[in-house]
């Protein structure tokens, strides 16, 4: 397996729990004369799940693209493991961060397990490659997609594809996981599964950024919430601090109620109806 790169370097060291993994400071970006990001700040430490919330068009996916290194901000700086993102080569980045895109597409009908195996590509030629088969099998098992082995990815349903795509991203074993609306295509059971997996990875020392629309889901699983509006970070803090009715009502432009769950006390965020 060659990537057109003559790189034999070994795996980056896993970040120590609690250490700074990713910082984005005052990120600004304009495309086609429109300001998509106007001062977004995010930081992720190893071992935490950060929920990226905000209304449609707030710039969540754009910010995620900047964090992944796809888009270069016109101002501000993004650092991964203390180094500016622009200093990394594609392969070095691939060993440190993985991104789950909103829609999982595939041009050719590769079998589902081969798609998951693609997640191991950055590790080819390193000692980590010896674990490929085990990592792939494990990623498929935890995403409940092992049954799709041998079936063409293109023949799977939307929810099944989403789980295989997640398995691929998990198999990449990057210390920073960026998940763009991972629950969008999934039923209730699998939504919970995905966020439990995010928690498991955080417990193992990874940093996870997850874009969500379901605020109650964010409240239940995130350590910290970053709230975006009009391309800027308007709040960043623990769930209980950020998910408050007045702030959310203003940002989402719709009256919102926040109630404690009668049994667990975890905030439930509901739009006011009727």
């Amino acid at each position, binding site marked *: 397996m060659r990537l057109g790169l003559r790189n034999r370097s070994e795996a980056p060291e896993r970040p120590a729990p609690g250490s700074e993994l990713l910082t984005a400071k005052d990120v600004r970006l304009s495309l086609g004369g429109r300001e998509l990001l106007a001062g977004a700040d995010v930081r992720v430490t190893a071992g935490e799940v950060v929920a990226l919330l905000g209304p449609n068009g707030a710039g969540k996916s754009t910010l995620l693209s900047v964090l992944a290194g796809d888009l270069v901000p016109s101002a501000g700086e993004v650092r991964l493991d203390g180094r500016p993102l622009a200093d990394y080569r594609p392969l070095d980045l691939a060993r440190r961060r993985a991104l789950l895109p909103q829609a999982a597409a595939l041009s050719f009908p590769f079998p589902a397990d081969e798609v998951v*195996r693609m997640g191991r590509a950055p590790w080819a030629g390193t000692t980590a490659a010896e674990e490929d088969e085990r990592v792939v099998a494990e990623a498929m098992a935890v995403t409940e997609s092992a049954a799709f082995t041998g079936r063409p990815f293109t023949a799977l349903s939307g929810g099944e594809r989403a789980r295989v795509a997640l398995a691929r991203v998990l198999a990449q074993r990057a210390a920073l996981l960026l998940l763009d609306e991972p629950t969008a295509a999934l039923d209730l059971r699998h939504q919970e599964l995905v966020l439990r997996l995010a928690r498991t990875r955080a417990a193992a020392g990874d940093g996870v950024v997850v874009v969500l629309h379901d605020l109650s889901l964010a409240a239940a699983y995130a350590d910290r919430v970053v709230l975006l509006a009009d391309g800027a970070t308007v709040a960043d803090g623990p769930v209980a601090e950020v998910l408050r009715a007045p702030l959310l009502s203003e940002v989402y432009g719709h009256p919102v109620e926040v109630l404690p769950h009668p049994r667990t006390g975890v905030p439930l965020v509901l739009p006011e109806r009727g």
Partner: protein
Amino acid sequence: MTATATGGSAATTVRRPGRTTLLTAGLAVALVVCAVLAAGIGAYRIPLGDILASFGHRLGLGGHELDRVPESVLWNVRLPRVVLALLVGGSLGCAGALMQGVFGNPLAEPAVIGVSSGGAVGAVGCIVLGLDALGTWTVTASAFVTGLLTVFAVYAMSRSGGRSEVVTLILTGVAVNAFCGALIGLFLFTADTAAISQVTFWQLGSLSQATWGKVLGVLPFALVGLAVAPRYARSLDLLALGERPARHLGVDVERMRLVLITVVALLTAAAVAVSGIIGFVGLVVPHLLRMLAGPGHRFLLPASALAGALVLVAADLAARTLAEPAELPLGVLTALIGSPFFFWLLRRTRTKQGGWA
């Protein structure tokens, strides 16, 4: 389970290694058999035993020299033609598989980025203007050069901010193809009847002008292309996920695209230059192989080269024997068989997996 994975390559072998290996070996054997048969069959028949004896003699492995006529027919007429068909077919098949992979689109073929039409402009221009600075090589050389220039023009025009988008690239190709078509029309408008018939013949595609010189002309491009292509097999697999996901997995997408488009341009421009326009090999062969043994490029790239060579050697044999003593234009034959076959493939894929994507 970990014991089976001794390294990166072992862990990523294709799902059906038995099947892909068998198919590749089968194609190679069929190609050799077909090439030897094609060397013997024609207006002047040469028995198989004589062919092998002559091979043996030339290689110093025993055997004996044939009489003057069969020896000359075999070595100066048949073999250059068979070898040229093999190289052109291999180049077209491999270039087709590369194009489909690079564009993540099963309908892409080298013609999309202007190689064929650009090459045709050079060839037609030479024929119509009566240029012969390089003697018999003039048409071939100018087709090669203009084919390459057109591809790089398309690529340069579709780039902006250090990146090229697939859709922009294809649309630029459409515009440039139309422009080339207009140039060819303009040349034909000013041409005399003799030149027009020569142009028409060139555009139909043929290997009847095969010489060892042309074989040597195509050989370096075919060898370089076929050597470089498999190095990108895994990256092409990853590119099927889309550009961004491929980049997230460490593929330098822009660099790979530039290298592979160059490879496609060299392979196709060289093939078009010596044979004229031969369609459908690059489009149909990779499809068929993907259907038989899956889309993994580690298998698909070499197998497409082998199958392309096999198809073209067989097609050229048919072109020169079906209507003896007349010779059918090779490009017409491949399109005549290729297009209904492609249609059948489309239908079959549709019913089997509900479409392409």
